[in-house]
């Protein structure tokens, strides 16, 4: 993937990237996810929240040290924000970072870290002052071999088995002060800055899963015969497929519209949330219906639709739950 330039699609060429537009990046996630939802999220997290924060907020030295390696696939990136008590309410995080000379000492824990264990660097958020809420949070680039940085439990998940999800512990983790990303106390802005990009990435992943589910269901419906004819000729099935196709098409338009807005530098919080909300719901629904079209066979591991079903569900949960997407969209209705 690195050789193909997929690990740094929207990253400028002088930092080792492919210097392509945002839509191309979304196309790549979309296409990968049709075959492997896991690779879709690996690429999305690596780029949108593992690399972009350094590109946009890092100093020149940090960009030189990390962005080129990330953009070429030499390094894999991860994002450590969520904590046991801070999920949707990310600003309530409790991990602390205390400045001691030329280092910050980090203590705390993180959960549900995608790419964890295999990633080389972790964009990590910790509280550097006693201010409450989003104030006083700082961002750090933590390398995997940093003393006191411990990779914890690997989650056994319902789906996306090809993607690592781990917990992390920072036990007096000694991070050089030069690894502070951006300005101390303004880390939450960094966390939020790439939200749209991340959400559209997950929407593209979900779209890929939905498209794959539809393709499998149509193909199977044409082959499988019951009552002397292919089940595709049974209205109960063909109408189901028609509904799936309509939802998929609508999701595609929302996803690529949002991507186009990002590309044009147009503020698109609402559109990104709509794309994420609709595409992920479509993925879950399409996967459920695909299993139904396959009947008993769909419930076995002999066909990929059961995997689509398991892989789709988490898209409604991570990168901002769909409840959060509703909040964002509703807020825009009353602005």
């Amino acid at each position: 993937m690195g050789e193909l330039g997929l690990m740094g699609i929207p990253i400028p060429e002088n930092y080792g990237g492919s210097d392509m537009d945002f839509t191309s990046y979304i196309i790549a996630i979309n296409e990968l996810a049709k075959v492997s939802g896991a690779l879709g999220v690996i690429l999305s997290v690596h780029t949108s929240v593992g690399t972009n924060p350094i590109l946009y907020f890092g100093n020149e030295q940090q960009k030189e040290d990390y962005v080129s390696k990330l953009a070429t696939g030499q390094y894999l990136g991860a994002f450590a924000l969520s904590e046991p008590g801070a999920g949707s309410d990310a600003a309530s995080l409790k991990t602390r970072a205390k400045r001691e000379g030329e280092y910050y000492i980090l203590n705390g824990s993180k959960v549900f870290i995608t790419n964890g264990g295999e990633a080389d660097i972790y964009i990590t958020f910790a509280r550097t002052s006693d201010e409450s809420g989003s104030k006083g949070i700082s961002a750090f680039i933590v390398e995997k071999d940093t003393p006191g940085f411990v990779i914890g439990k690997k989650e056994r998940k319902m789906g996306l088995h090809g993607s690592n999800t781990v917990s992390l512990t920072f036990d007096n983790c000694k991070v050089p002060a030069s690894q502070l990303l951006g300005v101390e106390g303004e880390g939450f802005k960094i966390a939020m800055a790439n939200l749209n990009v991340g959400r559209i990435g997950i929407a593209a992943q979900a779209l890929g899963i939905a498209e794959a589910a539809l393709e499998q269901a149509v193909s199977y419906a044409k082959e499988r015969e019951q009552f002397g004819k292919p089940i595709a000729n049974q209205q109960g099935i063909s109408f189901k497929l028609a509904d799936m196709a309509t939802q998929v098409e609508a999701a595609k338009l929302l996803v690529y519209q949002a991507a186009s807005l990002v590309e044009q530098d147009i503020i698109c919080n609402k559109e990104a949330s709509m794309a994420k909300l609709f595409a992920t719901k479509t993925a879950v629904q399409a996967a459920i219906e695909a299993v139904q079209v396959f009947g008993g066979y769909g419930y076995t591991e002999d066909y990929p639709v059961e995997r689509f079903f398991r892989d789709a569900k988490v898209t409604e949960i991570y990168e901002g739950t769909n409840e959060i997407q509703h909040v964002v969209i509703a807020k825009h209705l009353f602005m």
Partner: protein
Amino acid sequence: MEVLLFMKQQGVNRGEEIRLVLHFTEEQKMMRKMVRDFAQKEVAAEVDRMEKEIVFRKNSFIKWESLD
């Protein structure tokens, strides 16, 4: 593309409408083809293994990276 042309001919050129037109550039189409080929040729064969091992290993990634 035809839709965009039609809209322009009709004097519809407000951003809201034009945003709805899904049109990939040649470069984007090439990206789609390249990733689609890669996914079908290289990734599809690995999906079952990734499922069974329940783990993503970066060395697999690097291996894929080195494939033509």
